């Protein structure tokens, strides 16, 4: 029993363990995967069944190397399956798909409008539970059928699913589209008072040159779709929840319309308690803007003109917010999280009014404070035209 024997035993142990473990459980080669790049869920005629459209990427067709035959065929395959729930549908689609569906890279989950009206929570649960699915998938509500949305072939991208993801990623450009991750959506659901929201998407155009476009925001009451905000109301909503990251404001001035670009904004929503015990929601917004386009000469070098433009812009913002508030009141859906604000402010009071919140919310008072600052005029500081004195001369001549 010398040292080398011990070493020998150790080696045997290691090999034994390795041999035992070459069961290779869970091993999937890359070419045995079918990567999902979008899931659409629709209502069917049968009450207990959903129609799931799974979009599978075909990687070998994504990289087209100038081959004309390949570029004509699409780089994805939409497989549809009807089943009791999403999980069953995805599993049972292996009846017709030769590779197991892989959800780990899925960027979006689309719900059809009809299905959303009936409630989405029972379909979302799978995405939270599955170990491969991620909490930052986007939730999108389709106007019409979700399956139809996934069938629209985009021009710039190869895969419709990734196309929709990029459309949502661009929400900061206008701030008229929202982005709702699974996480945000579920977090709202869990709060009990805040209504979840999700972007809506629709198909424009006739069958030949169809394109997708984002259109407003779907508002949920609990997990059921109740109404929608249009683009303007959407931005009003985003102002309140401090998610405006960019976008344009067109403002009227005495000399034509001026288009202002939002550089950045910061908003703060707090609940204040009045003497009589009711609450006021105070929304304070600070926005920095920049002149982006001017139609006629309006001198932005003059202080009074600057403050005029700023006031105009803040009025526009206020009107946008009011539009969204009115819509939310009308739907009785607290999309802004006013309830949460009150809860943070006075938990005991909140406990007493919690059950009656649906009735209190439409009556709630709000205070708007919008401070807009014009931060620049771009690369030129005046409307390009002859200098005033020259113009007078020219006029005189």
């Amino acid at each position, binding site marked *: *029993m*010398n*040292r*080398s*024997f011990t*070493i020998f035993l150790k080696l045997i142990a290691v090999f034994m363990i*390795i041999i035992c*473990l*070459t*069961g*290779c459980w*869970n*091993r*999937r*080669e*890359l*070419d045995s*995967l079918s*990567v999902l*790049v979008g899931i659409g869920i629709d209502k069917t005629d049968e009450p207990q069944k959903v129609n799931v459209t799974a979009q599978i*990427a075909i*990687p*070998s067709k*994504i*990289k087209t190397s100038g081959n004309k035959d390949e570029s004509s065929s699409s780089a994805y395959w939409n497989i549809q399956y009807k089943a009791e729930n999403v999980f069953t549908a995805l599993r049972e689609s292996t009846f017709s798909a030769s590779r197991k569906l*892989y959800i*780990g*890279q899925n*960027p979006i989950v689309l719900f059809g409008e009809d299905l959303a009206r009936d409630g989405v929570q029972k379909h979302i649960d799978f995405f939270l539970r599955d170990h*491969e699915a*991620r909490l930052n998938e986007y939730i999108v509500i389709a106007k019409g059928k979700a399956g139809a949305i996934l069938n629209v072939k985009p021009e710039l991208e190869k895969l419709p699913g*990734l196309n929709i993801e990029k459309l949502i990623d661009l929400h900061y450009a206008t701030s008229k589209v929202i982005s709702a991750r699974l996480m945000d959506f579920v977090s709202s659901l869990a709060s009990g008072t805040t209504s979840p929201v999700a972007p809506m998407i629709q198909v424009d155009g006739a069958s030949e040159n169809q394109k997708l476009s984002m259109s407003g925001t779907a508002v949920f009451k609990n997990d059921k779709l109740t109404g929608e905000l249009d683009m303007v109301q959407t931005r009003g909503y985003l102002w309140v929840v401090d998610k405006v990251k960019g976008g344009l404001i067109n403002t009227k001035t005495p000399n034509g319309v001026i288009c202002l670009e939002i550089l950045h904004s910061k908003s703060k929503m707090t609940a204040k308690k009045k003497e009589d015990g009711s609450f006021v929601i105070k929304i304070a917004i600070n926005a920095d803007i920049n002149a982006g386009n001017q139609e006629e000469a309006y001198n932005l070098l003059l202080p009074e003109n600057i403050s005029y433009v700023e006031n105009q812009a803040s009025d526009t913002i206020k009107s946008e917010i009011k539009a969204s508030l009115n819509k939310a009141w009308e739907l009785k859906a607290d999309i802004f999280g006013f309830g949460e604000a009150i809860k943070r402010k006075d938990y005991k009071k909140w406990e007493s009014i919690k059950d009656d919140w649906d009735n209190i919310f439409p009556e709630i008072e709000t205070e708007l404070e919008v401070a807009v600052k014009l931060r620049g005029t771009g690369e030129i500081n005046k409307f390009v035209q002859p200098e005033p004195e020259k113009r007078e001369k020219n006029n005189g001549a």
Partner: protein
Amino acid sequence: MSSHVKKVIRHFKIQGENLNEDNRKKIDNRKISKGLQNNLNSIRRTFGPSKDVIIREFSFGPKHQTKAALVFIEGLINITVINDNIIKPLMYDSSFLFNKNTVDPSSMEIIKSTMLSVSDIQEAYDIKETVAGCLSGDVAFFINGFSQAFVISCKGFEKRSVEDPQNESVIRGPRESFTENLRTNTALLRRKIKSPALIMETMIIGRKTRTNICITYLMGVASPELIELIKRRLKNISADAILESGYIEQYIEDAPFSIFSTVGYSEKPDVVAAKILEGRAAIIVDGTPFVLTAPMLFIENFQTSEDYYIRTYFASLLRVLRFMSYAISILAPAAYVALTTFHQELIPTALLFTMIAAREGIPFPAVIEAGIMMVTFEILREAGLRLPRPVGQAVSIVGALVIGEAAVTAGIIGAPMVIVVAITAVSSFVIPSNIENATILRMIFLILAGSMGGFGIMISLLGLLIHLSSLKSFGSPYLSPIAPIRPKEMKDVFIRAPLWAMLKRPFDIAHNDINRHKSITIPPDSQENKLSKGGEST
């Protein structure tokens, strides 16, 4: 059971050797007799039929009546010295030496002090000593009528001159390297460290090869226990042959079954000098340009001499780069296999599509694919190294074409795998001293990654960590400044701090004289500021 059998076998072996050596010992232990022919016969019998042993008999003294003989081995000695400084003075100028027919013991002393114009002469009293002297390049000088002989040192065999280092090339730094000659090597070290505290102790190891070995260390800096330990281990070597320092390394290292070497080596005198100055001991072996240094820490693989010659920022960057490339060289294929076969959710979507497209239609699973590529690469590397240089080039070109182009186009190997293996290969060359262990580790990691994915990789990394931190090299923990942690020595691990900031030697090696600097040196610029300020005030 097996140990018993071994013991018996060992017993027989030893007896057999004793029998063999008994005859020889009879001759060896013989004292030098007064009769010259007796001595020469003993010598002849010892060397047997070897033709390179030259016995030159001549006579000198008054009337040339004193018989004498020189015994040496051709090729090991400097023939001019023998001709001009031994034979010539004796034959021409020795007539006054001896009184007629008297053999006076004092005349031996006279010959030594007045006739032989060579520097190193020793007296020998038995045959064994003279034989040993002859074998190491000395000349044995027997005189009829004296029971002693001279062993005159006039070594003069062919040796290589000091050349550029072959393996450790540098951009900046000394270009000399050790040679096969022990004395040249010790001289190279002496020229670097001109201190009497640099001790060079010699030993002869190897019953047959009788290789000269020199233990070099800095007295007062190297810990006495370390030197004691090294000497003890060297004395325990009972091997018959020491042909290269690698032999010594395997006999004295702490962990012979580890894939990591716990004895360092270098062929550059400046590297060895730096290690001696940090409190290590160097073992110079005659016949090889590779000098061993001990103890060796894992971190030494990542430190090169050049790090200390160039500026600190770039040196630190290189350090980090070396750690990264070591990590890549052991982990890249395993990580690739684990990612593509177990954890696809960790690959970004666009990259995943590219990888799937590349793998489409590949017949092997990713592990096998990686294994094939790695084995092919190792074969190519070995072939390129061993073949004569021009053919080696051809081999690598053919290999690159076969692997890089043909295999991918034929759809046997995926292109990403080629990239991964290529990166692995290139990064394994960054640290040549780690190639051995990196190759083995890569294989182990690949197998575990193939069966258990990331969990397997983590388990094997933990195993690696345990193994590394349980290793010791001559009493110093192998992973020293990292585990056990020595916060002050982190200046020379992931970064290389300026030399004036590295005040201390590594604690685990030089704990009895830890200070590198005599006093705390301030950075040069602040010293100058002080000077200039002083100048202004006066």
